[in-house]
């Protein structure tokens, strides 16, 4: 598959996943099974982010050090968010 076809396929996937997220809300799942819906929606967001970073930002083809760099930054943000939120539970 050429890069252009790959980019186009990724665009369609991203478009569909965004729509699925909205559909989860429209089906009323948030009212009946909030945390399940929460999990689905956040996993879809992470999948979309991975697709954009991996293919549009070319991380898939770049040295792994760049992936490590961004992962470290993400871990720092998650550590702050998680530990701070836990501290008041």
């Amino acid at each position, binding site marked *: 598959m050429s890069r252009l076809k790959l980019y186009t396929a990724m665009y369609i996937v991203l478009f569909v996943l965004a729509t699925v997220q909205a559909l989860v809300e429209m089906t009323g799942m948030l009212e009946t099974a909030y945390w399940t819906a929460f999990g689905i929606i956040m996993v879809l967001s992470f999948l979309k982010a991975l697709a954009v970073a991996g293919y*549009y930002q070319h991380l898939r083809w770049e040295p792994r050090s760049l992936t490590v760099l961004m992962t470290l930054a993400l871990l720092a943000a998650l550590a702050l968010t998680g530990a701070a*939120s836990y501290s008041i539970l």
Partner: protein
Amino acid sequence: MSNADADGPDDTRTEGTPRADGAGAVAGELAEPDHDHEFPGMGSIRRWFVTTNHKDVGILYVVTSLFFLLFGGVLALLIRTQLWVPGGTVLDGLAYNQAVSAHGLIMVFWFLSPFAFGIANYVIPLQIGAKDLAFPRLNALSYWLYLFSGLLLMVSFFQGASFSGGWTMYAPLNVPVYTPHIGASTAILALTMFTASVTVGSVNFITTIHRMRAPGLTMWNLPLFTWSILLTVWMMLFAFAALLAALVILSSDRLLGTTYFAAQSAGGSLLWAHLFWFFGHPEVYIVFFPALGAMAEVFQTFTGRRLVGRKYFIGAMLLVAIQSFMVWMHHMFLTSINLEIKTLFMATTIGISLPFDLMVFALIYTMLKGDIRFETPFLFAFGGLVLFILGGITGVFLGAVVLDYEFRGTYWVVAHFHYVMVGGVTGLIAAIYYWFPKMTGKLYDEFLGKVNFVLYFVGFNLLYFPMFLAWETPRRVFDYRPEYIPWHRLSTVGAFLLGLSFLVLIYNLYISYLDGADADGNPWKYATTAEWAVPSPPPLENFDGLPSYEDGNLTFRSESAGRGGEAAADGGRTDTPRSADGGAVVTAPETGVVAKTSHEEHASHASIWPFVAGAASFVVLVGLSGLQQGSFPSGAAGGFYAGTTLVGGGLLLYGFVRMAAERFHGPTMAMAERWPFAGVDNMKTGMWVFLASDVVLFGAFIGSYVFIRVAEGWTNWHHLIPADHVVLPGLINTYLLLTSSFAVVLALVFAERNNRLGVVASLIATVGLGVGFLINKALEWNHLFHVHSEAFPNGWELSTNVASSTFYLTTGLHGAHVTVGLIIALYMIVRAWNGAYLDDEAPIEQFGLYWHFVDIVWLFLFPLFYIL
């Protein structure tokens, strides 16, 4: 880790006149314009406004930071004078609070790190064998943002009152209800500007040290000072991003009326503490590490011995840099955070002391194994070690939850952190004495240096040690029990003695610069690093040849051989073999003749635009400081602030556009060690590193939202949001941004296919979609501002509640990123129309990295703010 590789154009941009030796070049540099045909000589004032050279910028940093040292020092003396008697009357309450707050802010932010980075700016490229930092104009921009941020802080004193809530700026004291003066807002904006300067500098140093090391200079062989700076900038990159988030939120609370830190907000004051100390604890090591690295270099040189356990020392520093992000809650033991997390953070805090033990013993053992020469740099380095040990031990008390209950908020804390922070200053004074001959070509006065040390060490301990004894004095309060009067008076005497020692330091440096004996390339008997292998001061582009360590010792290759990658040593080869890591003694090269071809394009060293951008930022922020609840006040004052904002904004845009359009050749190295970013050019590496800091910035914003929502009750949130806030606008904007990302990718594909119209059309589509995104957002916001319902009779505005505050500010920050991207894209459309990017699509890829990142952020904002 050694993987020297070749990429990009060559870095040989020196002019064609061969020099017999470096010293001649230095003399010429002082007397006439440098060989960059637009670069004035050092005697010209213009040079200091246009320079981008790392050595010049380093000197600017050092001189400016010494000015702020005097500023902060005078404030300290005012504080100590006030404390001569309990309830002193030299200053009134507000003035005292301003003096305490400004003293802390100035010393921590505007003196300590900039002083260290002045030295680092000068020394690091020399130590790693580079001709300059990776992005010289960004280096100059970093300096000008620093200088103007300091000036902005000074302006704040003339706007009613500066910030008076302490250097930690705790909530809710930091919101206008408690600190209502415009000057308080200006001080916050000044710190925000300083944070931007630090971020720019961090990206630059990280890119430089990782990608521009001389061939053969592997990570393990990096000089210890370079190692310490490398770890410092990595910590800075992440820690200052969190501080930036905190300051942007605080600025919004003060200027726009959001309610994150308002007293009545759920978790507001705790949120500030989390954000601030997530930055604040790594900041301790950010301040101390450069001093530690310098002390290690000085110990090696003045004991004539390689540091004992060098690799373990580096490993310990690396461990501390990582652990520094896992201990911040020990500053919050007295808050309402739960006992489990307090216990966990007590353990991590005690854990971080262990690597420091190793470093301290490595330094002590190096002394025992070496042959010590008690010259001024060593005296200060040794003094710094002693003071740091005392500071460290007294800090362990504060890491224990039970003891912290007693000590928090007392002079024990004041004494402890001054032993640590000013202990760091002691190490940096060692550094300035150590590298002064390199920076000026002059030797300092040794007698005055020793007088300086005695005054300093006695004054320091007289000032800070009595604070341990009078520890029950409440912090930031100028009243105390009468039995503490003798201790406080001793402190005050010590403060003046310490102040005098700094005057001796500055006098020594000044008269030595004017009348000191000439220093040769290496004035020290056992100096081991590459900066001592070039003349003092070094020539403009540092080396008359390409430094290489590939055969195990430092050699200089001819430029042409370097381009070809051949290992041909030329006349620049040094007399004595040396290694980077302190394994052998260095001497200055006798000759440095390098054959150069006449058609070589030389590096640029002059640009006025960093100065313009820094000055314009200052003007913008002076204007914005006048904002209250999202609007400027009526009348002449409001007109002044609004007009200043507009003029500054226009000038800033103009400055950046001119900087982008300017032809400027930065240094790249054809052959270099580039681990771990081999195969990624400097620009792309810099962009990725910047994006990593942006991840933490947005992470802290999203984290703040999550924290506030958890505090409110995660599922008990929707009553704060009007029913009109629906999914559809967010979904439409998701489609628009995803499509715009696809359009940027298409622009890259068309550039690779040499299709000019395709590139232009794709970029126009990107801009169109981005504008559509902003219009959709504006319509949505306008609707929400004016909703009328029983729950929200006055609309849903920024200040309505924490839900509206988090929604508007987080999506607003994202919108600001979109706007910046659109400005860049518009500029690129013009260039693409003129045929740019067809031979070199890298700029499109770099822009794409930014744009796609903005897209990714939205992919999380959409569910968090529209669905969940």
